[in-house]
């Protein structure tokens, strides 16, 4: 015979301010299985926990219901407390009478009745609970890092330095990401390459890191401690080990194409190329789409001159399968396409450029060798307009603030004034958000020392007239319209995350703007809702280099926390099969989002470590052969009965 104990928490006035807790105790005592019920001000306190432990011993309780906050908050607390008093933790359940009751209702009469029903229904469930044991599984001591930008690099180094293996997957031919494209970094004006390339080199030589470039994660199964990952490695056509970067191949390559990726269409490159001199891995790569040699015709000029015999035009795609214990996602961002902003020229005017194009134009490694020349005619622009919040904070485009644009625009204007001292720089802004350490000081320096003209106001339209661009704007301080002829316009484009595909593959949710959803915005900002998958960099939300690096290190330490364990304990709330009822139709194996059900000659079989207990297979099974541990149909029906049944309702006081 079950002996249930019920403990009703006041949560200060959070619950007791609305719910008549004494009445709840009094009413649930009428439940035939309840042996003991009491209330206390803070059940989660040491005294409250002690009350529960004492009651278990004193009354020989076999099940516990704590009516308090959400089980997300304190279920672990009460289960641990009950366990030390000798109870199986799975015989403890919580009824949420705070978030789902007292916080959302005002009428004490209704709230008290609802509390009674919720507790009663939880009692009905707990008496059917089986005492379960946690599922244990081993941990694969290897970490997958997706994305080779600064966040991915930092995370990979941190994990590798702790002695664990790292697989770093990058979709482009080199690691380095967006940071490699930048000229200088705010607010200190370090050269981006100078501080990034040492880290890239460290990754390259680290014995614990294996880099896969031109690669994409295409499939992930399993769960924390043991993810099974499939990586598609596209052909590079050049042997990384053999290539000595002599550049002979590049000289003879007849195919000239626009350098769309690294130099953002500002210059040209060959079909066999290296994105930039410090690329890692240091090897050439063939752009298969534009090469004459890879298709049906075989040009092979590069093959003929390569003394290292490093080029193989018959290179093929490879599928690599690895097992990892934890995953860090750092897939970074793209700029919002300037072609979507019609009023600024839809990408029609050559001298209206985006912020990354400007970075390339002023970078010493860029297409002009660091001399600022505008794309249309190569002239030095004597007057430049910088427009902030293009696409960002605009309900027709991106509703959010991209966070980095105020600072990089200040940096752009500053660097422009240094390159063209007699030039004029105008910045159009909504307001300046310079919330980081030494950021405000940097803005002041740009405004005063460099005499950059800041105008508060939005630009309504850019019009081309002859070789000038006419900027139509309004100064919202004086309230007057402005017409400003300039030589070049730099659009501080908002940033958008690269998450669509990876979120689907990893089955982690994205928010309304496409950023990966963290488990908790304040208290778990680097954890994804799936255990063992962590987030870093702009994939999770707009952030600058400083914040990306900090978050990457945080994600790495979370991954290390898992990798350093010998085994993972997992909730035993998994699906079970009644083999006598199973008709082997296979619906469950196809529907399971975690690939946790397999078909055997005896019927369906659940792989317990992989099962997340989502219940999809249980709902779908046509013969009712599947059920979820401690969520048996009988228990659920009893819960529903309690929620709907006629129970004595307390009088209005």
């Amino acid at each position: 015979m079950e002996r249930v104990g019920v403990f009703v928490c006041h949560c200060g006035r959070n619950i007791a301010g609305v719910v008549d807790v004494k009445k709840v105790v009094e009413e649930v005592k009428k439940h035939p299985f309840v042996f003991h019920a009491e209330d206390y001000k803070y059940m989660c306190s040491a005294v409250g926990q002690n009350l529960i432990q004492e009651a278990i011993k004193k009354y020989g309780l076999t099940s516990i219901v704590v009516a308090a906050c959400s089980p997300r908050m304190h279920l672990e607390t009460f289960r641990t407390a009950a366990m030390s008093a000798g109870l199986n933790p799975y015989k403890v359940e919580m009824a949420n009478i705070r978030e789902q009751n007292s916080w959302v209702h005002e009428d004490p009469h209704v709230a008290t009745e609802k509390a009674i029903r919720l507790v009663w229904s939880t009692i009905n469930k707990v008496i059917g609970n089986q005492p379960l044991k946690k599922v244990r599984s081993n941990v694969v001591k290897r970490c997958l890092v997706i994305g080779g930008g600064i966040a991915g690099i930092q995370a990979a180094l941190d994990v590798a330095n702790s002695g664990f293996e790292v697989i770093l997957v990058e979709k482009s031919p080199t690691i380095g990401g967006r940071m490699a494209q930048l000229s200088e970094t705010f607010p200190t004006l370090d050269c981006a390459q100078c501080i990034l390339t040492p880290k890239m080199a460290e990754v390259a030589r680290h014995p614990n890191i294996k880099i896969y470039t031109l690669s994409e994660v295409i499939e992930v199964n399993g769960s924390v401690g043991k993810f099974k990952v499939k990586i598609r490695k596209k052909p590079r056509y050049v042997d990384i080990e053999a290539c000595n970067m002599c550049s002979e191949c590049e000289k003879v390559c007849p195919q000239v194409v626009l350098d769309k990726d690294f130099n953002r269409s500002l210059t040209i490159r060959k079909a066999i190329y290296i994105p930039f001199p410090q690329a890692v891995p240091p090897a050439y790569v063939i752009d298969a789409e534009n090469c004459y040699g890879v298709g049906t015709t075989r040009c092979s000029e590069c093959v003929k001159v390569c003394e290292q015999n490093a080029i193989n035009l018959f290179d093929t795609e490879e599928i690599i399968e690895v097992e990892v214990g934890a995953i860090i996602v750092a897939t970074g961002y793209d700029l919002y396409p300037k072609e979507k902003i019609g009023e600024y020229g839809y990408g029609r005017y050559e001298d209206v450029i985006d912020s990354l194009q400007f970075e390339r134009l002023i970078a010493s490694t860029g297409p002009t060798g660091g001399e600022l020349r505008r794309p249309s005619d190569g002239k030095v622009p004597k007057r430049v307009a910088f427009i902030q919040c293009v696409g960002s904070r605009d309900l027709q485009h991106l509703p959010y603030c991209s966070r980095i644009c105020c600072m990089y625009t200040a940096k752009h204007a500053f660097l422009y004034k240094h390159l063209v001292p007699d030039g004029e720089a105008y910045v159009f802004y909504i307001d300046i958000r310079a919330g980081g350490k030494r950021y405000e000081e940097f803005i002041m320096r740009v405004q005063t020392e460099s005499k950059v003209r800041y105008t508060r106001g939005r630009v309504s339209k850019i019009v081309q007239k002859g070789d000038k661009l006419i900027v139509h704007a309004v100064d919202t301080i004086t309230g007057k319209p402005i017409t400003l002829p300039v030589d070049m316009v730099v659009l501080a484009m908002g940033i958008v995350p690269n998450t669509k595909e990876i979120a689907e593959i990893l089955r982690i949710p994205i928010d309304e703007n496409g950023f990966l959803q963290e488990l908790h915005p304040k208290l778990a900002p680097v954890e994804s809702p799936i255990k063992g998958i962590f987030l870093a960099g702009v994939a999770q939300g707009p952030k600058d280099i400083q914040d990306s690096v900090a978050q990457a290190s945080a994600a790495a330490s979370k991954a290390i926390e898992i990798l350093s364990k010998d085994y993972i304990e997992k909730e035993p709330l998994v699906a079970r099969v009644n083999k006598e009822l199973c008709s082997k139709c296979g619906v469950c194996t196809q529907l399971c989002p975690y690939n946790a059900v397999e078909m055997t000659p005896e019927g369906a079989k659940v792989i317990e470590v992989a099962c997340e207990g989502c219940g999809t297979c249980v709902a779908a099974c046509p013969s009712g052969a599947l059920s979820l541990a401690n969520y048996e149909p009988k228990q659920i029906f009893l819960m529903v009965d309690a929620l709907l049944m006629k129970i004595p309702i307390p009088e209005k006081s």
Partner: protein
Amino acid sequence: MRILYYPGCTVKATAIRDEKASLAVLEALGFKIVEVEDWVCCGAVYNLPRDTVIQAVAPIRTLIRAESTMRKHKTSEILLTLCSMCNHVLKMADNMYRSNPDVAYKLDVYLSDEPNYEGKLKIMHFLEILRDLVGYDKIKEKVRRSLGGLKVASFYGCLLLRPREVAIDDSEDPIVIEEIMIQLGADPVDYPYRNECCGSYNVVRTPEYVWDRTKDIVESANDYGAEIIVTTCPLCAYNLEEGQKRRKKELKGREIPILYVSELVAYAFGLDDALEPEVKVLIDRMVRDRG
């Protein structure tokens, strides 16, 4: 197809050329035009404040009468407009009535001398009818006289394209007039001022400002090689024409004739009776001059 037609005041006065050409074009395309009985002025400018309904009274009264006309003459629910401003005001009022029950209730009470508005109409601008009901291919089939590569600058103005919920096309990159011009054998020019405001009613209070704007618009069209500017808005047409007279000195002989879109369509369809003789002569000369 029988469609309802709301002319509006300007079309019956200064823009009578537009009405004549537009209706002839639509009749040639097989539409039967039924003018709304007892229509009233749309109010011409739609006030943006949301806490008043007064600006919607006149247009809703017209829409109620359009619904009565629809029932009486068994027409379709399509309500044709020609003037950009009427199109804008009717659509804004219709939107407001349909999306906000409180506003609808207030208007019903205010307009208690009329039956309630049922919100069954589909208000369509002349250009929308050509694009969505006729289709570009059918326009091309009807062409009897090609415009012979005439360089045409489309002038949309602002009210056809803003705000987004009543816009007939993309506010920043509209294409419908250009597409129609291509079907007629003309060569549309892409110039940056085509979706700018002409200055609108400022012509009454601060005309100098409007003349400056129209000068910029005409100059830009000229820079991009336009030989003619077409529009669908009577006020734009007036401002552009008058502005060129007032800024004759600054324009230095670079004036461009202003016509309605419907007039070029009527010309290409060979509907000479629908055109004012001087307009026909003008287009004839321009097409002939191109050889």
